């Protein structure tokens, strides 16, 4: 089994490679529901990739398969050279701990921990030392470090989730609808932060927000579990047109 290496040391080698990925779920009638149909793609170091498409097109499932949270039905997914389909639970845990960051729509902060403790959590799991206060300062929440999630607004909680990613400096960040539950102002702020993250490492973001998608280096438009269009440095109007064509 190949040992994962940092994207910094692999030059142009893709951070994420997906080959002929399919994913099906069992249906209530005993059959299967195909969600992803033969997807192949690569994510380069430092690339900001957005995945858009109509509801049910398989965006979130693709993200979860790419990150190893969901096993593929067939095909192969490699993250930093490591095949996540064949890796043991322990190896996957180490890969996530040391090289991967997640940002979810529903924030998913641990309610019993303060903002500072939530930010430091992945590093604590990896037995690494980080400065959570620096990361919180970067997202403008230095004065909220000792607050628990229940005392923070949705936008603030999502910024804590981004600070958690910033603190451990992973090679790739997977973001699932990171602005989905936020108002416009908070959403813009979160996107600015994500764009900043993408300057130093790869970001894969699933979103319904087409203006947000247009800030990415590349946009994949999914339709019925397959890649319908691929746009590079698109104008927002091009993204709108591509998604309209996929609906």
């Amino acid at each position, binding site marked *: 089994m190949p040992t994962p290496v940092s994207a910094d040391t692999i030059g142009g080698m893709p951070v994420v490679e997906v080959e002929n990925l399919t994913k099906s779920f069992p249906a209530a009638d005993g059959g299967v529901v195909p969600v992803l149909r033969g997807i192949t793609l690569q994510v380069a170091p430092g690339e900001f990739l957005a995945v858009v498409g109509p509801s049910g097109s398989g965006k*979130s499932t693709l993200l*979860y398969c790419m990150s190893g*949270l*969901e096993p593929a039905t067939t095909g192969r997914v490699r993250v930093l050279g490591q095949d996540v389909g064949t890796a043991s*639970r*322990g190896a996957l*845990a*180490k*890969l*996530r*701990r*040391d090289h*991967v960051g*997640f940002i*979810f*729509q*529903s*924030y*998913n*902060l*641990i*309610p*019993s*921990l303060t903002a500072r*403790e939530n930010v430091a*959590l*992945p590093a*604590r*799991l*990896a*037995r690494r030392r980080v400065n959570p206060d620096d990361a919180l300062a970067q997202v403008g929440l230095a004065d909220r470090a000792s607050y*628990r*999630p*229940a005392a923070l607004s*949705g936008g603030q909680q999502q910024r804590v989730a981004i600070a*958690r990613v910033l603190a451990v400096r992973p090679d790739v960040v997977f973001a699932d*609808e990171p602005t*989905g*539950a936020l108002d416009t102002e908070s959403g813009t702020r979160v996107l600015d932060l994500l764009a900043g993250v993408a300057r130093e490492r790869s970001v894969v973001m699933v979103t319904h927000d087409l203006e947000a998608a247009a800030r990415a280096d590349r946009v994949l438009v999914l339709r019925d579990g397959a890649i319908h269009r691929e746009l590079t440095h698109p104008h927002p109007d091009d993204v709108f047109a591509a998604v309209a064509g996929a609906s």
Partner: protein
Amino acid sequence: MLRLIVSDLTANARVWLGALLIAAAAATVGAMVASDIETALSAGGTTALALYGISGTIAALTVITALIVVGTVTTLTVTLQQRAYALWQLIGLTPARIRLIVTTQLLAVSLLGAVLGCAAALPILQPLYAYAFTGSPDLSALHPRFTLSGALPVILFVAVVITIGGSRAAGRAAHTPPIQSLREASLPARRMTPARWLTGSLAVAIIAAITASLPGSTSPAVPLTLIAPLTAGVLVSFGPLFLPGFVRAWTSVLPPTASAAWYLARNATATRGGATIGPLVVAVALAGGLFAADGASSQGSSTLTTGAVVLLIGGPLLLAVLGSVATIFMSSRRREREFALLVAAGGTPGLILLAAASEAVIYVGTALLLGLFSVAVTSVVGAWATHAWSWAGVMPSLTVAVASLLLVLTATVLPAYAGLRQRVTRVLAAE
């Protein structure tokens, strides 16, 4: 409305099953007390006098335990569903209507549980009499009676304690602004309420009254036995004032950098552990308090047999430990979400199981410390009243703590193990 009541009971089966279990357990224990009284009434003579004395002690211990355990579980039942009540408010249900629905649910579940609990007691009573009264041929030969007239007060007591306790919590939940409930990912912090102040103060007053009555008493054992569970009641009532700090203080014996699992368990327990720790404190106090009281009053010549211990505190002890396990079972969905997040953040299965086990150790460790304090109060009062110091409460307290740890470990680790087999993405999906 009937459809909403039934669909909500089904959708939140895990929470309501916990409440049903506790209602049934409380009724089973109550049935034993009621049976003692009924049997005494039919037996008459000196046998009746002996049974009245025993049933009085059991009734007092049962009522103290039931009020603490049932109150805790019922409040948790309602609090865990605060999010659903917020959604009900958003679709136009008034707080009064929500309170009515929840009260109806509580009444239905408590009545069903109480009936099941009384039915479950029927086959237990005869073997219990035979075992508990082994040393007394007259009492062990008795045929225990437990008729409908004995069962009705038990069913009524269980239903009233659960419904009134839950209805107050439902009133608070129904009046919480829905957006606040929907935003809060965690259970609201336990706060001091007027009921807690009142209950705690009342328990302190009863302890003071018992203590004042002890000098010169010819049979101090029974009143002394009540002091430890009452002290536990004081600690549980005033828990929100000191429990989070107390948990953080004693768990700091292991530095935060030493173990990520301990660190996670420590924070989780300090924040939301009160509901689980309370019943465990009562369990430790019941066992230790009984032996400490016996040690002080018998001055070294203990008359407690195993049968007597089972008869006096077996039921309340069972209720307390079941109550603790039920709170863990009821809130396991929230725990699953935290474990899924840990998996996503790179936590290994070993770390998650270790965190679950650490949580159990912290629950029981905290309960043991507070329970031993309650036992120590009994020993001090006993020494003051009888001029005899007794350490007899220590070993029973430790024994109950070890037995509870096995059950609580099962309740925390097994769901964690099952959670590891679930799809992380499904657990973490936006609600």
